[in-house]
């Protein structure tokens, strides 16, 4: 397999649009973790017209809630959670400038539309590789909603976080193309 392409965060528009589903990448820089409960709160704030505790413009959100760090450690296991649960919220964040999302599993039509209109990319990280991914996280700090525990928003500094462009800003979708390529049941059906 080809060497991963290094991506430095934050992403700009050109970089986002240059990425194609199937690209194997390695992420470097700052990302923010947020999952179900934090997304609900962010969108509630947008509904009320209030400022977000983290400016998501240009940023990348990682759908992840870590296990606790050991004393002196940066973070515990830190793999992705399933992304479709964030689908009801993601288009709102993309509309205010979110550029990247990292998770696992396919995104729905409304997210894809928002990704195309505003220019955003969705990376798949390796679900269940929480221990491996924790090694790529060099800094972690809770920056919003600490009362949510594992679901708080954390600012993470990552180095060489392995990922694959799963759905791109042009509608490219590895969940469709990759599966079609390796499907072997049709001929026999």
């Amino acid at each position, binding site marked *: *397999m080809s060497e991963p392409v290094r991506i430095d965060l934050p992403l700009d528009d050109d970089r986002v649009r240059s990425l194609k589903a199937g690209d194997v990448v390695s992420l470097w820089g700052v990302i923010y973790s947020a999952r179900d409960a934090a997304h609900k709160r962010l969108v509630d704030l947008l509904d009320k017209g209030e400022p977000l505790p983290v400016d998501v413009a240009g940023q990348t959100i990682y759908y992840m809630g870590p296990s606790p760090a050991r004393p002196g450690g940066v973070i515990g*296991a830190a793999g992705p959670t399933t992304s479709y649960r964030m689908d009801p919220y993601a288009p709102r964040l993309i509309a205010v400038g979110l550029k990247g999302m990292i998770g696992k599993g396919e995104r729905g039509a409304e997210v894809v539309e928002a990704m195309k209109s505003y220019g955003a990319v969705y990376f798949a990280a390796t*679900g269940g590789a929480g221990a491996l991914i924790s090694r790529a996280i060099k800094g972690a700090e809770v920056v919003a909603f600490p009362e949510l525990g594992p679901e708080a928003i954390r600012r993470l500094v990552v180095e060489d976080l392995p990922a694959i462009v799963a759905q791109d800003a042009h509608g490219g979708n590895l969940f469709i193309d990759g599966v079609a390529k390796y499907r072997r049941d049709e001929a026999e059906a």
Partner: protein
Amino acid sequence: MSKRNIPAAEITAAVKRLAIESNYFLGEDVIAAISEFKELEASPAARALLDQLLDNAGIAAEGQVPLCQDTGFAVVFADIGAEVCIEGNLQAAIEEGVRQGYQEGYLRKSIVRDPLRRENTGDNTPPIVWIEVVPGDKLTLYFEPKGGGSENMSRVTVLKPADGRGGVIDFVVDRIRQSGGNPCPPVVVGVGIGGTFDKCAQIAKRALLRDIGTRNPDPYYAEMELEILDRVNKLGVGPMGLGGSTTALDVFIQAYPCHIASLPCAVNVQCHSARHKKAVL
């Protein structure tokens, strides 16, 4: 009949240990299966993902870090020998073991007290406990931390008896196809057939305690397991749903007698982080 006494404190200590060990140490059977499927995997990207899973198991064991941040709902099967006498409260002893294990093992607390009001209980209790009375004077505890991502893809249905074997197979294969990358494939598929609406789900979960590569002792179901495995691995879903020939590592069927009018069927999807450990007291 003579009874054998088991103090509740011993049960708590065992559950605590199992909670931690099951989350740090992936079974040798799972590691071997991932390695074997990797050799046969058609997609280079998928092979790289499977390598990451093998590395992950090594890093978790070595660093005593959970394999996955979702350290699961604590599901405990307690098979109690009929000649065993528990000194204390079995349910409370298991619950305390979960509390201690998740706290002291740096495991994530993922349980909310109420499904709609959603406030975290803070200690990963309560567990789900299934108690069964079996012959003998031993207490066997199985600990299965069950992740949310794969549990969310699980389904129960009640088919018509006329749907038969083919109907069950189609239901299972279709479920894995529709689950795509959500349950962290490669998955292990627990299938419960028969019983009632609730019983088939429970035996599907229990089936996930089996080691990869072990077959149902009934040749009829053993063959059906392999047929489903073959069909699932032709779907192309692959690791993380991104395409490949490794969609499932194994399929385990558990059957139970059922009503003349019914054919209940449950698919309990288990991710590759197929964690379970056992202790015999």
